């Protein structure tokens, strides 16, 4: 299968990263990525904690690990009962024991504020449809800055026109969370390419498999699962193969699969490319956090020299809502 060099922007080297066999769940195709791990990065669930929400639009995160820098996942959000839910518009690097107050967080649900205890927290990543706008609004203070976009998204999906992302994340959680089982994490997997229908949706690279495993649910269920849920194809009647023996049937299946893999490879080869703007936003020791913006790709990356440590990149056109209705080829 094709490599990733054509897709990623200039400073990001994915040398050594390999694509695995694609999996599909409805409209969502996931191509697993394996490759060299970058040790010493604190994983989000085990090390990164939501410390408090001091006010609307303000979220304080803490790297609770004794050692290691935490990479705050791009567009991570937290949900907990009895507190307003917030999402972050940007990533960040947090040294061990460090806390950081994000004053440009976006409230994604009108509710009463309060101190958050850790037990019932769960985190998500903003749905693909909101990511481009959220990235644009990084550094902009205003807790309600995503409400209009959330309301538009709810309307588009037949839900009440409100600035409550909870209408999707919580009420549709039973169907969305099935994506974490409909797609299966591979041993050693530390990243993935996502397609919704036949369109590229995003590229996610984590520092190591543990980090990626902790992001798995948030990515497949919420970041990409929401768009895929809306584009879920109707089940098709199976068309029998022409084979007249068990061996013939196995050969027909293998040939058919090879054709479908080739189609996905063609899709990868046809990914839009072009110049992007890369702007450094944060640094910690040799790590560089940069924002990528371009007509075909946006997001944030963390690099060490030329080596990719973390990437959360998505297709802005898909993110603004033109992905639905795509049909995954059988």
């Amino acid at each position: 299968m094709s490599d990733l060099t054509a897709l990623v922007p200039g400073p990001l080297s994915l040398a050594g990263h390999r694509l695995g066999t694609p999996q599909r769940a409805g409209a969502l195709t996931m191509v697993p990525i394996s490759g060299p791990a970058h040790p010493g990065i604190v994983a989000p669930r085990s090390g990164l904690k939501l410390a408090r929400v001091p006010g609307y639009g303000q979220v304080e995160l803490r790297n609770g690990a004794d050692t290691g820098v935490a990479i705050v996942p791009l567009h991570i959000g937290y949900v907990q009962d009895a507190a307003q839910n917030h999402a972050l518009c940007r990533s960040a690097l947090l040294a061990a024991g460090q806390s950081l107050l994000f004053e440009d967080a976006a409230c994604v649900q009108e509710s009463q504020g309060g101190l958050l205890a850790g037990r019932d927290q769960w985190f998500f990543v903003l749905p693909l449809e909101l990511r481009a706008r959220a990235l644009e609004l990084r550094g902009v203070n205003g807790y309600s800055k995503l409400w209009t976009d959330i309301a538009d998204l709810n309307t588009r999906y037949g839900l009440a026109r409100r600035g409550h992302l909870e209408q999707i994340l919580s009420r549709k959680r039973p169907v969305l969370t099935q994506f974490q089982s409909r797609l299966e994490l591979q041993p050693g997997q530390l990243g993935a390419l996502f397609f919704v229908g036949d369109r590229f949706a995003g590229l996610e690279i984590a520092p190591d498999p543990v980090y990626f495993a902790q992001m798995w649910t948030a990515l497949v269920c919420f970041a990409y699962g929401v768009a895929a849920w809306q584009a879920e194809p109707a089940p098709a009647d199976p068309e029998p193969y022409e084979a007249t023996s068990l061996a013939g049937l196995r050969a027909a299946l293998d040939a058919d699969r090879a054709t479908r893999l080739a189609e996905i490879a063609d899709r990868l080869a046809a990914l839009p490319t072009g110049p992007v703007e890369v702007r450094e936003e944060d640094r910690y020791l040799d790590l560089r956090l940069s924002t990528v913006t371009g007509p075909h790709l946006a997001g944030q990356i963390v690099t060490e020299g030329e080596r990719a440590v973390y990437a959360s990149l998505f297709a802005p056109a898909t993110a603004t809502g033109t992905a639905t209705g795509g049909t995954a080829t059988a």
Partner: protein
Amino acid sequence: MDTPLLLAHFETHDEPVSLPRGGTLCWDDADFHRAAHTDDPEGYALLALTPGVRPWQRARVLLQVLAASQAGLDDATRATLASLTRVLALALPPAHVITVLLALRRLRANHKHTTRAILRFVLEHPDADALIAARRPALVDCFEHALGKATARGCARRVGEGDTGSDYLQRRLLRFLAAPEHALPRVRALYAAGHPGATAPPRAALTVDLLRERPATVTATNRGDIAATLVHLYRGGPAGDLNTALDRHLGDAVGHLPPFPGTVALVLDASASMRGYGDREWAVLSQAAALRLVLAELCERLEVVEVGGDERTPRGATDLATGVLDALATDPDLVAVVSDGYENLFPGDLARVTASLPRAGITTPVVFCHALFTGSDDLTLRRPAPALPERGFWHQDDFAELLPWMFGHCAAGEPWLRAALHTRLAALDRQAARIQTRSAA
């Protein structure tokens, strides 16, 4: 006899048989039952004891067995049918049995085995006194149909006059009964004044289907003993103690079941989703593994094709289609796919491959055993091959229904099913005899 079709019908169609006043008997699937009975009277009747068969279907089997002539049947089959009649007459709600007996009257069925069954129910049921008090006119109709109106009334008159063993009574009534001394007072009661307001006991005297464990909250370890033990093994519990317990629980689970004289190829989904996560970790996989252990004990040969990872280290994606092709290559009598239903490597391939089997000349039955967390799982997105025969399971108790359903799909399963149901019938008949003895004491 199409066992899977028959079982599916028995487990899903629970419409009552009804007798409209002045109308004809409403028995909507009579032809279906008659055809199955004609094909294999004993096999058909035994299927009524399969766990999960609906009560009104059991009532229909009782009706069919009692309505049909036994001419031409050998002694062993007649004995089986007699035993089944005794069991069903006690295992069905009494109101169902009375409907069956009244239906026999409408059908004018008056074979000797019919007469015996009617008289024993009316006069020797453990709740006969309460039933006569509550349903006297209906039971008089049954009694008079069994003996003929004149004979029935002649017997009643003689009993009323104190006759307890005349030649007349012996030849016409007593020879059908097991405990005449308790039955004769009930003949008098049948023709005595009624008891307005009396109610019939609603519940059956004998339990056929075991009461299931129904935990208020399903966890990874309250889904049966085998799975619970496996969960602790997977979590790293002490292997010595747990394996000893596992052997004991396995013995308890299969001890009463006959060996399956054939080959089952089990396609076991050992992908990451089968392991689960959080509070549900190991729950689904442990029950699938429990089924594997049970099959390994029962089957003459069990071929296991693991998909994804393996039972102890589930991982990766689910390629069920290749698993089925690998399983078919072992030349089994039956292929059973055990999966949570998340086919993701090449979704749709299982459906397409199994739809291609007839054209490829492969007649080996393939069934889909749906591994669930609870019986109320949402399966909307978890049916990779909807055309396959499919049955869910989440608790060890489900094996009682799952195994007959699985084996019933292949020819090698026919003798297994017959042997298993004979064993079940014998056990139930012993219970029925104990109940009757207690009642007569």
